């Protein structure tokens, strides 16, 4: 890192500390935790865009798959659900997968042009009805069991930390499928394809109640850290808190957040370390060579499409890990809250502002943009009050302006993105 980099990181730390002094440590730690997660997402996108020039606008989908992993790993299994139709459901899913594989195999056969297409089409259409016929009864049976409280299969009941790598694997699997279809085509086609897959992932999460309760949400995920109530009952903790002059309630909320920060920081540092090593390795040089001139790299015998697929899967896996961590932090999975502006395009702003191609820059962008995203609302309200202070208190314009201050966020992010692209296209911390 350069001196400029250290300076920028020090400034970022100062911003968070200042927030702590001015608006309370609880908020500062909340920002820090989401900042750590945002930094990981931003590293994932930087792997794809900064290293390889792949334009992925489906970050939201991979993040949501990570969230799904948190539910599937950590929630206790619902025995009644499994008895009602669990195995039948798994059978139906296996059947669906088998149909798809068979269709792909038919397509790969080199024989008979029109015949091949017809057989594949018949296989897909017939297979779809067969799949629905075997899936629907199982789904209905599972969803009928106590729908207000469960109505799904539950998870594996394992510690939630395991969900983080699992989230990465789920996202990697999805990335493999989408990459197989869309990589090797034009760059903006990949963008549209990823935009679509993200919407589909969210649609699945919203509709497949047997999987994760759909829009009814899964709440009360187990935690990797102690609960505040337990801490407050622990005499040792209360005593230690009193030693710092804090009452047990405040101390317990702060301590839980600090524990989360520690866990997230370990993951961030590990991924950052790996990403740095990858960037400096021959593999990283090859990636950048492909990014800067695909034709020349292909002429040197590099398999461009395979390398693109590889880095696309890696970057999406990192986003999946971040998604699982975020759901862990929230303690619930709410498919309705996933919005592309917040989970895809904001991450892009982080990468561009931080400096694409520079891992430290991406991390800094993650923290800085997340801090701004949280702060724009109070700052905007304050600015609006300043602007409208001259107007009469009951003017409609004044009321409208102060009411709309909450909507300033998106505009501010857009203006920041445009300004950085125009005046400092390499970002705050340029790639060398």
């Amino acid at each position, binding site marked *: 890192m350069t001196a400029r980099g250290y300076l920028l990181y020090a400034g970022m730390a100062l911003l968070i500390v200042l927030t702590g002094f001015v608006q309370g440590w609880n908020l500062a730690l909340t920002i820090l935790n989401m900042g750590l997660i945002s930094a990981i997402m931003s590293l994932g996108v930087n792997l794809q865009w900064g290293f390889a020039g792949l334009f992925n606008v489906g970050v939201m989908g991979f993040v949501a798959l990570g969230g799904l992993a948190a539910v599937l790993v950590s929630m206790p299994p619902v025995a009644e659900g499994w008895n009602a139709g669990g195995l039948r459901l798994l059978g139906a899913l296996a059947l669906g997968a088998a149909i798809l594989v068979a269709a792909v195999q038919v397509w790969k056969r080199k024989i008979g042009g029109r015949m091949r297409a017809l057989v594949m089409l018949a296989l897909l259409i017939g297979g779809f009805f067969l799949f629905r016929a075997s899936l629907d009864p199982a789904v209905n049976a599972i969803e009928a069991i106590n729908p207000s409280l469960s109505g799904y299969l539950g998870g594996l009941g394992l510690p939630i930390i395991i969900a983080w790598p699992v989230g990465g694997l789920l996202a990697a699997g999805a990335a493999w499928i989408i990459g197989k279809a869309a990589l090797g085509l034009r760059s*903006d086609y990949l963008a549209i394809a990823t935009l679509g897959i993200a919407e*589909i992932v969210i*649609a699945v999460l919203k509709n497949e109640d047997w999987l994760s309760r759909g829009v009814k949400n899964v709440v009360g995920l187990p935690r990797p850290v102690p609960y505040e109530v337990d801490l407050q009952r622990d005499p040792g903790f209360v005593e230690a808190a009193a030693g710092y002059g804090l009452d047990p309630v405040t101390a317990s909320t702060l301590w839980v957040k600090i524990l989360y920060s520690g866990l997230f920081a370990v993951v961030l540092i590990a991924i950052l370390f790996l990403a740095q090593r990858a960037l400096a390795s021959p593999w990283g040089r090859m990636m950048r060579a492909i990014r800067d001139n695909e034709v020349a790299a292909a002429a040197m015998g590099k398999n461009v499409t395979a390398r693109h697929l590889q880095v696309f899967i890696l970057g999406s896996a990192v986003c999946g890990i971040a998604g699982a961590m975020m759901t862990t932090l929230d303690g619930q999975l709410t498919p309705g809250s996933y919005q592309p*502006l917040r989970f895809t395009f904001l991450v892009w702003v982080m990468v561009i502002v931080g400096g694409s191609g520079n891992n430290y820059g991406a991390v800094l962008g993650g923290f800085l943009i997340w801090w701004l995203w949280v702060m724009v609302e109070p700052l905007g309200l304050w600015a609006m009050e300043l602007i409208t202070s001259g107007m009469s208190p009951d003017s409609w314009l004044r009321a409208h302006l102060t009411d*709309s201050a909450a909507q300033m966020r998106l*505009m501010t992010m857009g203006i920041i993105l445009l300004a950085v*692209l125009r005046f400092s296209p390499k970002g705050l911390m340029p790639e060398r």
Partner: protein
Amino acid sequence: MTDILNAIVALSNFVLIPGAAYGAQLALGALGVTLIYGILRFSNFAHGDTMAFGTMATILVTWGLQSMGISFGFLPTALIALPVGIAITGLLLLGTDRAVYRFYRKQKAAPVVLVIVSIGVMFVMNGLVRFIIGVGDVNFADGARFVINARQFREMTGLDEGLAIRSTTLITLITAAIAVALLFWFLNKTRTGKSMRAFSDNEDLALLSGINPERVVAVTWLIVAALATTAGVLYGLDKSFKAFTYFQLLLPIFAAAIVGGLGNPLGAIAGGFVIAFSEVLVTYAWKKVLEYLLPENLEPSSLVQLLSTDYKFAVSFAILIIVLLFKPTGLFKGQSV
């Protein structure tokens, strides 16, 4: 016989007519995307929010007209407001081009840079719309609701099934047809239109023959403003206005433009209808139609809905992937950069 007629009426009522209206709206949106792609050579992610902005401008003018007591008889007042909305949107787009895109055009930046820039513009426009009109649902359709409603149709024909034609559907189809006719007349018959097509086909050759690129770009933005605002207003009249739904229209619109062949206006129209009809066909519950058509003992017990309506994105997406895999330049020959 009556069974078959009933089936046809039910199919028209729930599939053909709504599908045609939705297809026309998508086609207008996709035309805007495809024109920008052909002339400015990038995929404009801000298009959904341009539509939202145009609709918002039209709604504000509509409210102004309504408060002055002006209405358009049985037609929605928004149609009078539409030209003003288009003018406001045109000014915004020209301003955006001046302030943002022109810089990158002069630099000859890579298309993907322009795509990222358009994401920034998307944020700003989305914020602007939310800032001015808020995030709630706005219903601004007035005038007659139905050209013919289900009861009237049943009385008229004596069939069991009713056919309701909403006035917004009819207005959508007619307005879209006029807009498309005007666009093609402009592109094929006028001097400016021809220079645009020349610019799109071969930029260097067009510059050599003395075509002013800035003029071509400005005219393109104005046409895009007209198309986007019209598409947005028609969609808003048909459903309702909500900033977020317009952003989500981006996916089917892009799918339509790519399926038809990016840069090809005719393809965009075809693509719009392909996407719209497949969305409606796959998410429609076929029970009613099949009940009329099949003999009694074969009648289905379930809804016979292939996919729940929330999966309509999956449909546009699946079509997109299929076309990309087998015919990467689209159904009609589009450009590939």
